[in-house]
């Protein structure tokens, strides 16, 4: 949590170059017909974690792996304090860092909706993807030695519904949709209030240039980059 990507003193353009070169050398990501992504309201989220528990139940997870993580951020000095929440699972990145690290090809990206999926029957538990992901999405399950992650409840998507986490949200601050429409503010969702806009990245989050994560936030004023 030291330097944020935005305030990093390193030469960003050089890093970008290096990233591009590396990508060229490794793989060309699947370009989905329509990339689905998450939108989360950092302020209006009460941090209850109903989404997390719904996810644990649906995926039958033991203690340890948490596909979805509601993170609590707080700061300021008494009595001028602030707090907000950042809610992330897998960001189903446009250019997922986990995918090329997988030696068995267990991870792939879906062509139709851009969901980054993992076939746990192919996973050998080497945990390389876990290290590669800048957002901590792949989760190691010590009970069977495999890595698992959010698949955006692909079964629910295929049934025409939304993921369990979204449908669990008591405050209606978490949603999914075509990420370009969410970013353009043209997607109808209760996650965003009237007149609110989203950002691609917030403070202390890994640089979105790394993997182009499919997530947007309604940011807290203190959570905005440069705040």
């Amino acid at each position, binding site marked *: 949590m030291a330097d944020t990507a935005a305030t990093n003193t390193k030469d960003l353009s050089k890093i970008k170059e290096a990233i591009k070169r590396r990508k060229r050398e490794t793989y060309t990501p*699947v370009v989905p017909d329509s990339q689905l992504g998450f939108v989360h309201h950092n302020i209006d989220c009460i941090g209850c974690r*109903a989404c997390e528990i719904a996810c644990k139940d649906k995926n039958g997870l033991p*203690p340890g792996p948490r596909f979805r993580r509601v993170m609590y951020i707080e700061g300021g000095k*008494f009595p001028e304090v602030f707090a907000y929440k950042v809610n992330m699972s897998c960001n189903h990145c446009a250019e997922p860092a986990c995918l090329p690290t997988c030696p068995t090809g267990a991870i792939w990206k879906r062509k139709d909706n851009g969901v980054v*999926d993992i076939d746990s*029957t192919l996973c050998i538990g080497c945990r390389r993807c876990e290290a590669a992901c800048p957002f901590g999405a792949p989760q190691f*399950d010590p009970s*069977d030695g495999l890595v698992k992650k959010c698949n955006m409840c692909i079964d629910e998507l295929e*049934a025409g519904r939304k993921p369990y986490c979204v449908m669990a949200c008591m405050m209606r601050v978490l949603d999914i949709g075509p990420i370009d429409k969410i970013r353009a503010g043209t997607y109808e969702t209760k996650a965003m209030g009237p007149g609110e806009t989203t950002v691609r990245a917030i403070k202390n989050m890994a640089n979105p240039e790394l993997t182009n994560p499919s997530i947007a936030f309604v940011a807290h004023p203190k959570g905005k980059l440069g705040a």
Partner: protein
Amino acid sequence: MRILEESLTLLKKSLNMTRRNFLKTTAAGSALAGLVSTKDAKAFAYEPYPRDDELTTVVTSCEHNCGSRHMLVAHKKGDVIVRLSTDDGRYQKDGFFGKDTEEEPQVRGCLRGRSYRARLYSQERLLYPMIRVGARGEGKFKRASWDEALGLIADKMMYIKYNYGPTAILDQSYAGASWAAFHKSDQISGLVARFLGIFGCRTVSWSVPSYQGTVFSSTMTYGDTMDGNEDDAFAYAKLIIMWGWNPAYTFHGGNTFYYMRLAKQRGCKFVVIDPQYTDSAATYDAWWIPVRPNTDAAMMAGMAYHIFVNNWQDQYFINRFVQGMDQGTMPIWGRGGESFKDYIMGFSDSVPKTPEWASQICGVSVADIKKLAEMYALTKPAAMKASWAPGRNAWGEQYSRMAIALQAMTGNIGKLGGSSEGIGKGWHVEGSAVPADRWSAGEYAAGIKSDRWAHCVLNYPNVKREEVGLWPKQDGSDGTIPNIRSIFWQGSNWFNQLTNINKEIAAIKKLDLVVCMDATITPSGLFADVCLPSATHFERHDVGLPWYKGHYYIHRPKVIEPMGESKTDWQIFTELAYRLGYGPVFNPKANRDYFFYNDAVDEAYLSEWWHTKVIPHHSHDGLTMPWEEFKQRGVFKFVLPRPHVAYQDNVEKGVPWSTPSGKIEILSTTLAQTPDFRKTQYGYFIPAIPKWLEPFEWLGHPKAMKYPFHMITPHPRWRTHTIFNNIPWLRETYEQEITIHTEDAKKKGIKNGDTVEAWNDRGKIVLPAYVTERCMPGVVVVHEGVWMDPDENGVDRAGNPDFLTLDEPSASGAFAYNTILVDFKKSDLEHRPGWDKLATARSHVFRRSST
């Protein structure tokens, strides 16, 4: 049989009970599977993974005493629940996936409800009757048959009643097992009340731990406790003052927190008055006013003063509807006596309750008190949600009464977007399918304040009636101190939850019989003589009701068969009643075979209730749903003709309040005309107008020299009191910790995560520190409800704050859960979080068949 095996395999996998032993070999070309086709992909956390649409869907609800009630949808295969989802708009009449309107919002389960499958199948599930074999509290039990366990209880009950009389069995039922129409375990009118009432041996615990201060306050001031606006009314407020209220943790009401989000989007401003900067403060972008615990009534008095001197009060409202606000509204019998304004202005006691006076006590700056008073007086409509927590103090009812005085003087009562809180009970569904006979609420020979039982047992017979808050009786038995020899717990972990646990531990050793009925092995259960396994609400037929506001009923069919040898509470009590000779009176629709075949009888009670009570109750609003349709859909949601606002008819149509004067009694007729408080259940004097009275411990007290920190013990988000304490999914998201302000921690050399011991004269607890700027200096926070784990010295290693509370309730009966001074330091003692060891430790105790 094959289906059963499949189901069990599925259960193990879905709960991840088994280790997987592969790398499975895969078909050729499958490495490209994702790029070519998704059809064969194994993309789930376990395999085979059943999709929702391949499972049987059953609508049910959660059930605990949390303040809400939400839908749970079980997806099951055979007799095993594979996963739970919640309301998605599909199940209600005219519903469809995604329907979620402001009038009929989805009632989505919270994190606790969503974890229910882990509780249902937990390692701590009590599956067989157990009889104690070691010393009481030692935790040694043997498995017993139902016949043996119930026979033992029945024999001892007869012995106790015969030898110690009609007060010898203490009813400590609570709503932990059930909040429903039929299988009730409420404190006052639960099944154990009916069971012991007919038996003729029962002492009732009359004060409600959560909110007795407001029950008293609203009863004295309004004449009833129906003072809550429906949660959708919050969306109309221009200003919402959350006084000690944290709906981000407690979720009070099915969608209260969501309606408040709508209010925020419509420009409503929020204020939070709390020693902590809560998640509610953050979410609603509230102006946070940190206040010293237990001094809220003083701060409110300062606000009232500022409103009076600026003449901002709604004098028209006061003159029409209020008794005793000022000399102009004093009743004839009270002319010249002390009015609320006399007290506030200092006319009666020469101490004007100025913002400066209040600031000295509550620690809030004069400017902030004035600013809030002005905001509240001039913003219309404004809701002041004066929550229960600040009322859980040594003079809790004074805070609640003072809050009503402010709401009355600003004319916000009975108005949409305003408030009259209070206890906050809103519009009520029709709530009881228990037989409506003279026994329905139970009868009792004695009633005491709930957390005075240990005092009563330890000091009997040298106990004065006011010490235990003895309830007055008109049957000639008035004044008889109960000789308590036994406790019945039904769905209640009260031993873990009442104040001053070390004193409880001393008292319980003196009893002859302690019975615990629960679905889970709790710390209370470890102190019982007999533990009886109750079926959970997934394993019996009932109807779920909104807890204290909300307009919906949720059907609860028997989703799965009762696990192990568990039986429903109705079955257990009915069989016990047969053994004691009054089975048909207790359960008039049943025969004795009810212990094995209860489905038809339960259906008969519920359908009769629906037809004779629910449908008539709603018919005047034109709302109805046939029982069969309700069972098929699983939910009956309805839209009220207008958002329910408490006392709207009193204000708009002149309907009198149910008080002696018919007005809002800021000067209480009942209190003013009580000649001798010792003869009342209160025991001690209570002023007729709300005042700030000094609690026995607070930061301004001389005791603060020895114990300089005020501890508060709010309700946690990750438990309903003690329920769900053992759920790994929840436990991994939080720790039982002591919240300490950064500067206080620094002075003591404590860093985030260090183990801390906190103590006072009553006890000591050990738990990790959470060091933050979000808590005001001088205050520490420990959430109530963690399962106690005391060591041999009585030091609680789990961090249960009730080892530090005092069993000294206010006169009204309000528990002093938030009146605690402590000191703390970094500790070498080990904190025992319990949850990662629980599975082995507790099940080991209960699987042992010693002797």
